């Protein structure tokens, strides 16, 4: 009981202080105009607009493969911070100072409400260059709005989104491990998983990393048209989850399949779960489409090579993502 009373007392004290208002039932003079403050506001809004334009420029300028997220974040944050600063100056310096009592219910005293509206209307404004201020506000707000819409351009033909559609795979590209050593089919074992990359490609390219498994060929149920994609039961899927682009870092491998959940590739971010036997189909979780599968072949020296490109485009879903990717 005691602590509750203390908490209630504290809240009452805090809000009581915040809500305490001076009674004012007279019209208010706007106070002296402050041209200096107005100029500060205009300058702040202009800077905000420049930062927002900076966001658009950064987004358009860099290729989608090396878009600097930090720079985008800084631009947006600075634009918002300058808008906030402008609002602070307006609030502190330009809005008439005296406050009106708000101690009335909305509908019960229409006359008083009217009166107050009249008072507000008659009290006049301290702002002298209203159009300039509104213009600056519109510029900052507009630029920010445009900045927020800019990423949508990646859907259309205006920005170059080609690199996102490319995967470094084509027939004959060798699979290599993190150290760049070619992966031999004979080295792959059952009941474990491997990470592989395209030889000669940037491992940071989302089209490059693969998860490799050796499965029992008799249990494979790949979709039609994928005959021969899994020599000796070795399957390769994109390691990039089709939901939000995390790395598929979990392989669920039952020790005793009779009682335990069956084999699955799982994304640790949101637990999208894919069936490696059926071509990476989604069996649980938020992913909307299967993992792209890479057709494989084994060359005469026993090294794994791609036999073509992925079955679908790699990464989170967007327009046309079900089309086959282009080779870089």
């Amino acid at each position: 009981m005691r602590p509750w009373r203390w908490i209630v007392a504290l809240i009452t004290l805090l809000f009581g202080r915040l809500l305490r208002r001076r009674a004012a039932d007279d019209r208010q003079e706007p106070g002296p105009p402050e041209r200096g403050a107005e100029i500060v506001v205009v300058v702040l809004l202009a800077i905000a607009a420049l930062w927002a334009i900076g966001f658009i420029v950064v987004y358009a300028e860099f290729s989608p493969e090396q878009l600097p997220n930090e720079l985008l974040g800084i631009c947006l944050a600075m634009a918002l911070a300058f808008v906030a600063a402008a609002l602070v100056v307006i609030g502190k310096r330009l809005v008439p100072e005296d406050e009106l009592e708000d101690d009335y219910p909305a509908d019960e005293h229409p006359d008083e409400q009217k009166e107050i509206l009249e008072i507000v209307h008659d009290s006049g404004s301290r702002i002298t260059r209203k159009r300039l201020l509104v213009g600056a506000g519109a510029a900052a707000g507009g630029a920010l709005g445009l900045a927020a819409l800019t990423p949508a351009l990646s859907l259309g033909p205006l920005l170059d989104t080609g690199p996102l559609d490319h995967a470094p795979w084509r027939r004959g590209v060798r699979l290599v491990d993190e150290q760049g050593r070619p992966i031999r089919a004979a080295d792959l074992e059952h009941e474990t998983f491997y990470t592989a990359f395209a030889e000669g490609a940037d491992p940071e390219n989302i089209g490059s990393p693969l998860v490799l498994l050796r499965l029992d060929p008799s249990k494979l149920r790949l979709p039609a048209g994928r005959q021969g994609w899994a020599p000796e039961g070795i399957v390769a899927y994109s390691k990039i989850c089709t939901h939000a682009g995390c790395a598929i870092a979990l392989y669920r491998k039952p020790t005793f399949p009779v009682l335990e959940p069956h084999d699955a590739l799982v994304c640790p971010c949101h637990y999208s779960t894919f069936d490696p036997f059926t071509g990476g189909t989604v069996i649980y979780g938020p992913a909307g489409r299967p993992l792209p599968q890479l057709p494989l072949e084994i060359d005469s020296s026993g090294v794994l090579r791609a036999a073509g490109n992925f079955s679908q485009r790699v990464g989170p879903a967007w327009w046309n993502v079900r089309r086959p990717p282009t080779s870089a």
Partner: protein
Amino acid sequence: MIGRSRTAVAIAAAISLGAAAVAYAQPQSGIVRPSSEPAAPSVALGAELYAGNCASCHGIAGSGINSPRHGAGDILGAGPSLRNVGAISPDFYLRTGLMPLSSIHDQPGNDRVLFTPKEVRSLVDYVASLGKGPGIPRADPAAGSLSEGLSLFTRDCAGCHQVVARGGFVTGARVPPLQGINPTQIAEAVRVGPYLMPRFSGKQISDAQLNSIIKYVLWTRHPDNRGGWGIGNVGPIPEGLVAWWIGGPLLLIACLAVGRRLRRRPYEAEEAEQ
């Protein structure tokens, strides 16, 4: 009254478990023991313990039971074959308390170890004698490299076990934290791949690399918390929550500061002067 009924239960348990249970002062656990155990571990003792505690699921002499069926004592049993699993699997499962299970539908969890060290040793020797299989690996974390361990752990382990080995989930199962097991058991788990975990052979992760991984796992027990406050090292959700608890009030204070007027003379005072 309660004390008396507890004593009664204890006496009943002692009688039902036989003299051996009393001698080890074991809690009531459902473990079936021979009426008199030899002083030293032996394959023969292991065989007896196996028959009493393991065979209903793993079959006679480790043959395995592939479809659930009711066995002795009407216990529903099914389990993988233990032939050719070597000493490594029983050593891992028994010393971590993952086995025996109370129900075949349970996920093995780090429960109490129900066998005495002598009994574990006997069971390991017995299961190892059922076929050819790998021995217990020797872990030497001191020989490992912490940075290599971090990189390997991130690649192969952290997806499930979380980057500072606090455990987590995979769809359909819990993933245990790695804070309470010793270096040998970590090495065994990597080589065995218990329950839903993949199995990593020496071809994929060499013994030297395994030592690095173990060194890293041991390091995660006392990680270097640069921020000063680890928040349990369980990841971004509690950290985000704490950030909100700090950031929210700061934002609130900022809002209040923005909303408050600059200090000025009241307008009435100005008017009065004029």
